[in-house]
């Protein structure tokens, strides 16, 4: 039983007992009241006090309910505040994590994308150097030093092709194999100008077409990297 209710009941009980004793002492001992009237007085007193106690209890219960409502409201507010704080902390934490990941991703992309471009540019540069060197064949010249340089560039491009798409590297290999074929054929007749011209007349158109195909392929790929 709550403390307020307990005190009302106790007080009412004590009041009844005190009234009974005082009435007994004053009224019965002085012979001013008969026993049956005394009992009636006590009954009326008990009913009166019971009514007062009931009213008091009702008021106490109402007060208690109000106090509980206030406490519940406090709890709700506290829980709400805690939830808001947790939500805010979580949001901040997630945002920081996302920001950090985004920055890392940007940094990685910032490194990878240029490297991918470099791979394609290296391969294209090597293909172009080699093709332009071979075009000297149509003049009846074997450009030995130019081809040696082109082979160095070709080998560098192989090393830098790591980030390019495998099918693109394969296309590059195919083109470089084709120009190597022409170069090795030319090497055997490098002092025979007319035969060099004939070799280029026979092989040049197909080689030129492959060169253009490679340019188109790399161009398309580089656009798709943006």
């Amino acid at each position: 039983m709550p403390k307020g209710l307990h005190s009302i009941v106790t007080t009412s009980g004590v009041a009844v007992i005190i009234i009974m004793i005082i009435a007994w002492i004053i009224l019965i001992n002085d012979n001013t009241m008969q026993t049956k009237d005394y009992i009636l007085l006590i009954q009326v007193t008990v009913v009166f006090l019971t009514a007062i106690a009931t009213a008091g209890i009702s008021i106490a219960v109402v007060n208690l309910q109000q106090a509980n409502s206030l406490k519940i409201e406090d709890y709700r507010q506290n829980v709400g505040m805690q939830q808001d704080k947790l939500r805010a902390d979580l949001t901040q934490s997630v945002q920081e994590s996302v920001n950090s990941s985004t920055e890392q991703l940007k940094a990685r992309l910032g490194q990878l994308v240029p490297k991918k471009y470099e791979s394609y540019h290296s391969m294209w540069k090597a293909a172009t150097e080699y093709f332009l060197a071979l075009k000297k064949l149509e003049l009846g010249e074997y450009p030995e030093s130019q081809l040696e340089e082109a082979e160095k560039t070709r080998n560098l491009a192989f090393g830098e092709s790591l980030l390019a798409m495998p099918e693109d590297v394969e296309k590059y290999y195919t083109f470089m194999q084709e120009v190597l074929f022409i170069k090795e054929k030319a090497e055997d007749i490098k002092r025979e100008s007319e035969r060099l011209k004939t070799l280029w007349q026979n092989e040049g158109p197909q080689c030129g077409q492959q060169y253009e195909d490679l340019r188109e392929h790399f161009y398309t790929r580089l656009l798709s990297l943006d």
Partner: protein
Amino acid sequence: MPDNQTPDEWLRLPSVVNNPAPRGTGLFLASSESGEKAISEGIVYDDFVGMCVQNNYFVFKWVPYEIASPEEINQIQCGGDRCAKSCIKSACLCNTAIGRCR
């Protein structure tokens, strides 16, 4: 006489020059009619050349580990591109009889 298609620059690699018995992967076509190349793994260059000469293989190539591991060699597709004397891809031999990489 067997055709040694090992590029000279591979034999000048420090890992090859500084090693008295450098190991690598040997590739060879026993004859001009051989459809597929044969592979000899983990073999010393001099031993491989000796074997190819002794058996009079048609063409051969020795690939040091620094250039390509045996696993890489197994994955490389040669595709039958045209060739005159050599092939660009490390794992491919030029079958000079038909002018195709194998």
